[in-house]
């Protein structure tokens, strides 16, 4: 992966890209005895090769004009129409790797199949190399001249963010949930990137830099908290041997440290203050605002939709991670395994502890990361905006400022702590000493509370699933046993959903390819040696004629 990021030559980039993809195939099928891993690996390698093919075509087109594999700017040489084609090639190629919807289908199956530390690496860093590719090649090699490039990326970002989180919400396998949430975050990054490209195309350097900063910061932040969340999922799996949220519960009493860290990551990924996710989300909002202040009406409508999408995504992500945290760590244990869970070894907790501390610190002192990102942006040839992001590293009263708006996470946390202390004091003064009685949860007067009386994660996500049913096409099956439907002895309730992309986009393509394969198999590849000889003869003749006359 490091090779991918450090190469300055198209061939070298391509080779290291391919090595990265192939090596991660072996990591996906690490537990190759499992059927699931093999399927995931197969899907992954097909998708990733499709992506690489598009990137390769892009490179070849560029080469045919520049006659060089150096990754320099080729904006002046390549004609406009070709640029558009190359852009589409790169977008599909890198987009598949990044997992943007509708090219995301490999991601939710490959990430859970790999071991947790590998998923952390894949989700945290590997899909980010695609973002790197987009930034490196599109403004770097092609130059951004058309607004529609940015608009396409922005629209894909909105779709990926909303659908990614919607699918994450109804998913109950922790790692699949996290994989869908990666799709969502890639969407948020692409929203930033899209704004940046649009602004670049309109020669609005300042907004472009601001949006690029937001996108890069979110890329960095996502690596931190998503890596942490995958490690957390790994700890849960290590302790309970299951990834199904429905079988967990009550782990906070068994694994208090893991619970604390996962809570931190959940808050960070839901863009909640004072964690780092909030800063990048805030910057994305600011760049939308900075653009809209001067933008034309047509684009502004798209931008206001992006604002709405970000709001929806933020709230759905919070719901999704309340579900993840609440149903795995809180309440009563829903299975034997969860009941027997023990805290994971210290080494696993230290890794998560460091990451969650970083999430908090970069949230409180965002300028540390922003100064690094600014140097990147300058090296990409955009103008520096660090001067406008006023602020000090450690001094409290120097808020982060962008587009004329200021926030100070540090001041905010300061007030929060003061208020909590004051509230505790007030409660003590007014209410006297705190006395509590431990007693069972209200069980409606029935027998003792049992885990099956709790709400399930499926139930939790159900209202949203019904509201957005058009996305999920949920189906349910109720089987009742007993004499009368009014007095069933047992009820079996199955619910499932179909991925509309697999059903309406991939299945038709696959069936067309299959039909074509069948036709060729029976019509051309008949198995008779005579016809093969004829093919060879025709091919040789055709080549000779081609050379003679053209």
């Amino acid at each position: 992966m490091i090779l991918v990021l450090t190469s300055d030559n198209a061939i070298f980039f391509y080779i290291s890209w391919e090595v990265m993809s192939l090596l991660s195939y072996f990591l996906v099928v690490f537990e190759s005895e499992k059927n699931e891993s093999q399927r995931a690996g197969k899907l992954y390698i097909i998708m990733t090769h499709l992506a690489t093919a598009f990137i390769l075509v892009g490179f070849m087109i560029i080469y045919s004009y520049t006659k060089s594999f150096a990754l320099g700017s080729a904006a002046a040489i390549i004609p406009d129409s070709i640029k558009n084609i190359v852009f589409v090639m790169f977008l599909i190629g890198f987009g598949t790797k990044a997992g943007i919807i509708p090219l995301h289908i490999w991601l939710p199956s490959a990430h859970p199949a790999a071991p947790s530390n590998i998923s952390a690496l894949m989700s945290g860093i590997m899909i980010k190399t695609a973002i790197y590719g987009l930034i490196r090649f599109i403004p770097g090699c092609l130059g951004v001249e058309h607004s529609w490039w940015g608009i396409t990326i922005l629209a894909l970002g909105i779709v990926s963010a909303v659908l990614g989180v919607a699918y994450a919400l109804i998913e109950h396998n922790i790692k699949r949930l996290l994989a869908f949430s990666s799709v969502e975050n890639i969407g948020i990054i692409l929203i930033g990137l899209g704004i940046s490209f649009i602004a670049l195309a309109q020669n609005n350097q300042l907004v472009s830099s601001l949006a690029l900063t937001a996108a890069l910061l979110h890329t960095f932040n996502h690596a931190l908290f998503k890596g942490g969340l995958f490690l957390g999922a790994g700890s849960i799996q290590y302790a309970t041997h299951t990834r199904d949220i429905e079988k967990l519960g009550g782990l906070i009493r068994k694994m208090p440290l893991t619970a604390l860290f996962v809570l931190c990551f959940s808050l960070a990924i839901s863009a909640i203050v004072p964690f780092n996710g909030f800063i990048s989300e805030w910057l994305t909002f600011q760049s939308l605002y900075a653009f809209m202040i001067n933008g034309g009406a047509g684009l502004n409508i798209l931008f206001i939709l992006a604002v709405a999408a970000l709001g929806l995504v933020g709230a759905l992500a919070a719901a999704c991670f309340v579900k993840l945290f609440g149903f795995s760590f809180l309440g009563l244990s829903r299975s034997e395994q969860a009941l027997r869970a023990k805290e994971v070894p210290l080494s696993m907790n230290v890794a998560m502890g460091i990451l969650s501390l970083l999430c908090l610190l970069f949230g409180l002192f965002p300028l540390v990361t922003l100064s690094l990102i600014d140097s990147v942006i300058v090296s990409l040839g955009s103008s520096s905006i660090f001067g406008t992001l006023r602020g000090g590293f450690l001094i409290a009263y120097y808020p982060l400022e962008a587009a004329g708006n200021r926030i100070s996470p540090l001041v905010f946390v300061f007030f929060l702590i003061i208020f909590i202390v004051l509230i505790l004091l007030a409660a003590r003064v007014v209410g006297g000493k705190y006395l509590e009685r431990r007693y069972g949860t209200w069980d409606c007067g029935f027998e003792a509370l049992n885990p099956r009386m709790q709400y399930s994660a499926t139930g939790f996500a159900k209202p949203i699933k019904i509201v957005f049913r058009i996305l999920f096409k949920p189906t349910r099956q109720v089987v009742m046993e007993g004499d009368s439907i009014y007095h069933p002895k047992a009820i079996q309730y199955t619910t499932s959903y179909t991925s509309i992309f697999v059903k309406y986009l991939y299945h038709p393509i696959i069936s067309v390819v299959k039909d074509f394969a069948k036709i060729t198999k029976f019509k051309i590849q008949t198995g008779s040696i005579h016809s093969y000889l004829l093919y060879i003869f025709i091919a040789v003749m055709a080549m000779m004629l081609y050379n003679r006359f053209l």
Partner: protein
Amino acid sequence: MNNVIYILVQIVVILAVAPLVNGINRKVKALSQKRKGAPPWQMYFDLYKLLKKNAVVSDVSSWIFKAAPYIVFATALAGALLVPVSSKLAGSQIPGDFILLIYTLVLGRFFMMAAALDTGSTFGGMGSSREAMISSLIEPSILVSLFTLGLIARSFSLPEIMMSVQNNGIPLSNPVYIMVFLAMVIVLIAETCRIPVDDPSTHLELTMIHEAMILEYSGRHLAFMEYGAAVKQLIFMTLLVNIFLPTDQLINFSGLLAVLLSLILYVIKIIIVAIVIAMIEIKTVKLKLFSIPNLAALAFILAFIGVLQYFILGGGYA
């Protein structure tokens, strides 16, 4: 020094007025039912009584359950710092904009939803799940509404939005503001768990949303949960009255008297809005849970039309 005064006034006014809103609301509803009802200041006594009581804590729960009331209350107060009750004092501000305000409130909501799952009770999960749905449906409307106001005022800071509105005549004579105002009213009703979205006085667990989440709380924990909800409600009402019904421009002098006068006007406006909301609650019935998306869609459409009008007409006044 200015800052200290601002913070003190802000906190004292918000803390003092928040329970009164609930009291007025209940009184109006009682009167409409030909009951006498409790006095408007009943909630102060209730809070005091709850603080004095011992807390019952579920033996299933963890530290999340006990920490949540303090976090909910503290985030509501921290959010309240960003929404000035009187623009006469807003000369010095806390750095923060409405995005910080929204995500601050999300922090409180996150803990409230998690705490509801902590006791292992069915109703907690139910409330939490419904809250998740309603909040995600209503969030785009809040952001688009406030974004529109921010674009007109050319700033996201709430004090500056209020100032810019004051300098521009009557906001509700402008179609942009009318649309955004209507969207914000729906947001207010949904966020503060009022009929037709949620019924704050229901006694049936199955129909509860907010009440179901705090069902297991008692003693001082309950007091802080309820106080936090009241403060959050007042934040949204303050947004409504100070942006759409500005009165501070009428006071053309400054000093202590001006601040007092503007605070009195503020309290009067809040009381009027509280009565209006009570009237809405009396006149409507609670919606079916799956009709709420329609209401949220209405709010979003209103906000969206508002922003479109801004793009077409501009922020100026006709």
